[in-house]
Each structure stands twice: as structure tokens, then as C-alpha cells.
């Protein structure tokens, strides 16, 4: 029985790889996920069959398993079905939390039940508790920030430099202690508590706009923790699947950090500036040109090419359907509409793509950074909806907070319209020079309302 189950695990691991491979293409991605999910169901069923075949599992243990599985599945399905697509980053973060948490709990339970595990198991066990607990508490804080329960701006407090150092020392001491004395309850408690605390203080100082990097990193951490749990339990399928996720999270972390031209270490050491939505910039307001919905509607309706530049503001206002509706209306008039999507627009990798997919935006209209930039000079209007720092031409000059960050060349379009609620700063806390460009018109409004009004105004020109 045990051998048969191992072969089933191997088949499942292979299916996970093939499933991820099928994610390369939107046409096959859904099949890939179904393959991966089906293999997972078979692997779990095989595990249950294995436990039954042992005949040693107590009734209480079965009840615990049934209760846990029912509770977890219900919560998982409820969250997965009900959560708004704009809240997807929070949900992914929560799944990172529970995955990392489960991996840490496995190591804790295993070390508590074994009498003399040996370094072969205590070293990965200690690392599993460390990484799993950090992924757990860090992801919860990240989800809280994304949901607005924890302030999104970098939180600064007295001892903000000292506390992480103290906790890191506690973590290190806990790891060494636990490896030296695996039966020590004190070591287990110290390590778990210090790691949980470290996860919290690690994510608290990070600003909302750095979230794509943070979520990717926590995803990698949760994967790694699961892999280490596999070392502890001597279960290869956990080792393999966890490592796959660790690789996926690492690649996304690297891509996101590159798209911001900042090192991962720099981001983890805290956000720059004062954070999101700082006060209005004194002096710059005099130079901006404010425009009305009617002005913009005329510009759009008589343009040949319009590029829509979505950012977090679009997600926050849940305005993806209104953007798509306006684009469809313009297309009807013969205007060519494309969307220029910066890799770190939004709060997680690919955030804008998912929102636009929900609004049924046709694929061929989407442009990534490399494709979009050569097209801006031909664009009559660049319509910036809730994007800020990723459009700031100041990134091209040295000496600013965002210098060297790859940006969308929005300022090279013939004219620019920015829909924004106020002159508030982006996360970098600096003025956006795009707004003071003489060719830029600022439409001060909520994104959803502005896009709805624009569509209505354009419609009057169609008739």
C-alpha cells in the first residue's frame, strides 16, 4: 500500500509541473489548473486510504481530521467564491498565511511527538517553523494592509530599528536551541514566538505599493516551508511541490523588484518617503491644468489612438468595467484603444490583467511595458486612470526616489489626461512631473464616476 501511494504521489508531482507548464498560455491555463487540482484530490484520497490501511488511527484522530477538513474546506470555498476580484491580493495573501502556518504546525507537532528525531529532522524542522511562522504572520499583516485593517503606509514607531534585530536574535537562538535540544518545549516556544513577531515587524514598515514584491516573497516562503515540512515528515511529494512554489515565488519576486528597480533587500528594509497618499504638494498645484469631463470626452471621441494606463486607483475604485465600457464605446467610433500595463501596477503581479479580464477586455488590446512604450508617440491621448509613480518622467533622471525605475512613457503621447482624486503623492512621496506637463490635463474625480461620465459624454457625440 505504501509503495502504491508513493507512485500516486509521483504522478501528482508530475501533474503539478505539467499544470504549471500549461499556465504559460491563457488557452491552456484552466486545463492546467484542473489537472493540478485533480491530481491533488487523488493524492489526498490516496493518503486517506493509506491511513485507513494502517488501522492504527484512533477514532479521536479521525474526528479531528474530519472536523479540520470540513472547517478548512468550507472557509476556503466560501472565500474563493465570494471574494471580489479587486480583493484578490488579500485572498492570495491569506492562502499564503494558512499554507505557511500549516507547514509550521506540522513541524511543531512532529517534534513534540518524536522522542529523539536527530539532526536530520530537527534542522529542517526548526527552519520550517521559522519560515512557516514568518510566512503566516507576515501574510496576515500584508492581507490586513491590503484590506485596509492595518494602515497601508509604512508604519514607523519607536524602536523600529531595534525590534527586528532583537526578534532576529531570538529566532536564531531558538533555532540553535531547538536543534541542540529537540525535546525542549522552551526552545519550541521561543522560536515560534520570535518568528511570528519577526513576520509582523518585517511587513509592517512596508508600503502598499511594494506589496507585489512582498506577496511574491511570502508566496516563496510558504512554498519553502511546505518543502521543509516534507523533509521533516520524509514525504517527497511535499518536498517537490513546495520547491516548485518556492521557485515560482522567487521568480515573481525578482521580476517585481526589477520592475521597480529596487533590490528585494531594500524593499524589506522599509518603504521610502512618507508613504501612500501624502498631502497635496504645495506650489505644484498652480501649474497644473484642470480639465472637465466634456473637454476630455471631445479629445477621446476625436482621437485615432487612445492608450489607457490603469493603476491601483482603478482597482481601488473597482472601475474596470467602466474603463472597458468606455473603451468599447470609443472602438465603436473607430478609435484604436489599447491598455498599457506596468508590471507593478496594482498590489500583486498581474493584478491589472485579472481585473481587465473580468471586464472582458479583448486580449489584443493589452500591452506590457516593452510593447507599450514604442506606441506612446503615436497615441493622441494617454488616459491615466489611478496610476502614479509608474508614469513619472522623473524616473529618467538620476537623484530622485524613483530614479532608474522602468516607467511607461506616457509623457511621449500627444496629449495626456490623468484621472485622479487629488494631487496626492504616490508611494514614493514625490511630485509627479507628468502632472505639470503643459500637455497634461488633470480630471479630478473618482475613477469610477469619471469613466462613467466620460462614457456618457462620448455617447452624446456619437449620436
Amino acid at each position, binding site marked *: 500500500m505504501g509503495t502504491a501511494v508513493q507512485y500516486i504521489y509521483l504522478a501528482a*508531482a508530475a501533474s503539478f509541473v505539467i499544470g504549471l507548464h500549461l499556465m504559460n498560455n491563457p488557452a491552456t491555463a484552466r486545463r492546467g*489548473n484542473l489537472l493540478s487540482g485533480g491530481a491533488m484530490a487523488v493524492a489526498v484520497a490516496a493518503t486517506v486510504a493509506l491511513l485507513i490501511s494502517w488501522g492504527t488511527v484512533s477514532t479521536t484522530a479521525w474526528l479531528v481530521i474530519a472536523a479540520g477538513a470540513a472547517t478548512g474546506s468550507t*472557509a476556503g470555498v466560501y472565500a*474563493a467564491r465570494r471574494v471580489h476580484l479587486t480583493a484578490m491580493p488579500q485572498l492570495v495573501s491569506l492562502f499564503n498565511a494558512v499554507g505557511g502556518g500549516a507547514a509550521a504546525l506540522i513541524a511543531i507537532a512532529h517534534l513534540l511527538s518524536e522522542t529523539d528525531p536527530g539532526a536530520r529532522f530537527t534542522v529542517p524542522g526548526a527552519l520550517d517553523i521559522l519560515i512557516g511562522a514568518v510566512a503566516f504572520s507576515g501574510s496576515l499583516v500584508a492581507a490586513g494592509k491590503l484590506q485596509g485593517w492595518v494602515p497601508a503606509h509604512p508604519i514607523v514607531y519607536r524602536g523600529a530599528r531595534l525590534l527586528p534585530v532583537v526578534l532576529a536574535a531570538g529566532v536564531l537562538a531558538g533555532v540553535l536551541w531547538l536543534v541542540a535540544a529537540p525535546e525542549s518545549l522552551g526552545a519550541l516556544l521561543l522560536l515560534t514566538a520570535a518568528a511570528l513577531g519577526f513576520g509582523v515587524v518585517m511587513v509592517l514598515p512596508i508600503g502598499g505599493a511594494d506589496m507585489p514584491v512582498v506577496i511574491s516573497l511570502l508566496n516563496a516562503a510558504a512554498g519553502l516551508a511546505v518543502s521543509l515540512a*516534507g523533509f521533516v515528515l520524509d514525504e517527497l*511529494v*511535499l518536498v517537490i*511541490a513546495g*520547491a516548485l512554489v518556492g521557485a515560482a515565488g522567487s521568480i515573481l519576486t525578482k521580476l517585481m523588484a526589477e520592475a521597480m528597480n529596487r533590490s528585494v533587500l531594500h524593499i524589506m528594509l522599509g518603504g521610502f518617503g512618507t508613504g501612500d497618499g501624502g498631502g497635496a504638494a504645495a506650489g505644484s498645484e498652480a501649474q497644473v491644468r484642470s480639465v472637465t469631463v466634456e473637454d476630455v470626452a471631445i479629445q477621446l471621441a476625436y482621437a485615432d489612438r487612445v492608450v489607457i494606463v490603469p493603476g491601483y486607483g482603478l482597482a481601488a475604485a473597482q472601475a474596470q468595467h467602466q474603463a472597458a465600457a468606455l473603451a468599447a464605446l470609443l472602438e465603436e467610433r473607430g478609435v484604436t484603444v489599447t491598455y498599457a500595463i506596468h508590471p507593478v501596477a496594482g498590489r500583486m503581479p498581474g493584478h491589472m490583467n485579472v481585473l481587465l479580464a473580468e471586464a472582458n477586455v479583448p486580449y489584443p488590446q493589452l500591452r506590457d511595458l516593452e510593447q507599450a512604450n514604442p506606441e506612446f508617440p503615436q497615441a493622441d491621448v494617454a488616459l491615466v486612470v489611478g496610476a502614479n509613480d509608474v508614469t513619472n518622467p522623473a524616473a529618467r533622471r538620476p537623484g530622485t526616489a524613483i530614479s532608474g525605475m522602468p516607467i511607461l512613457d506616457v509623457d511621449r503621447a500627444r496629449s495626456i489626461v490623468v484621472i485622479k482624486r487629488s494631487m496626492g503623492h504616490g508611494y514614493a512621496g514625490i511630485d509627479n512631473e507628468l502632472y505639470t506637463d503643459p500637455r497634461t490635463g488633470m480630471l479630478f474625480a473618482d475613477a469610477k464616476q469619471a469613466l462613467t461620465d466620460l462614457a456618457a459624454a462620448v455617447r452624446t457625440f456619437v449620436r
Partner: protein
Amino acid sequence: MSTPLVIVVTAFVLSLLVGFEVISKVPPTLHTPLMSGANAVHGVVVIGALLVAAVADNLIGYLLAFAAVAFGAANVVGGYVVTDRMLHMFRARGRATGRTEA
């Protein structure tokens, strides 16, 4: 009887490399479903939770096992369901495009 450590480390390293190879080809459009799908894959932790729960024999053990199974189940079930929900929209968009082009 446990698997020789070198075998486990081999599986770990090769899986990391396979992961890098497979995932670096995913286009930015699919980054969110990819992350969510990878998230579901680490729900495999539920198998570990089952194995730990099966040998639990005291109150602390049962509590830890309950939490681990519940977390793992939420991860694996929720992860696959939400990824499917997202990918469904990507497919729907493909159909919509086909209609407008026709």
C-alpha cells in the same frame, strides 16, 4: 526506515530548477493566476497535516493537528477554486474576442 537524505535533497534541488524553468516562461498577463495556482499547489501541505493528525495521541497533538488540517484544507480547496474562477474569466475573454472579430 527513512529515505536517504541525499535523495530528498536531490528531489528538492531538481524541483527548484524545474520550477524556475517552467515558470519563467509565464507571460505577465497570467502572473496573478500563476501565483494563485502555485498557492494551491503548496496546499499539498494538507497531506502532511493528515499524516501528523493520524499519529496524534494527546490534547496538544489533536489541537495542532486540527489547526494544521484546517489550514491545509483551506489552502488547497480555496486555492484551486479561486484560480479556476480567475482562469474562467481569461477564457471568457478569449470567446468575446472571437465574437468581435467574426
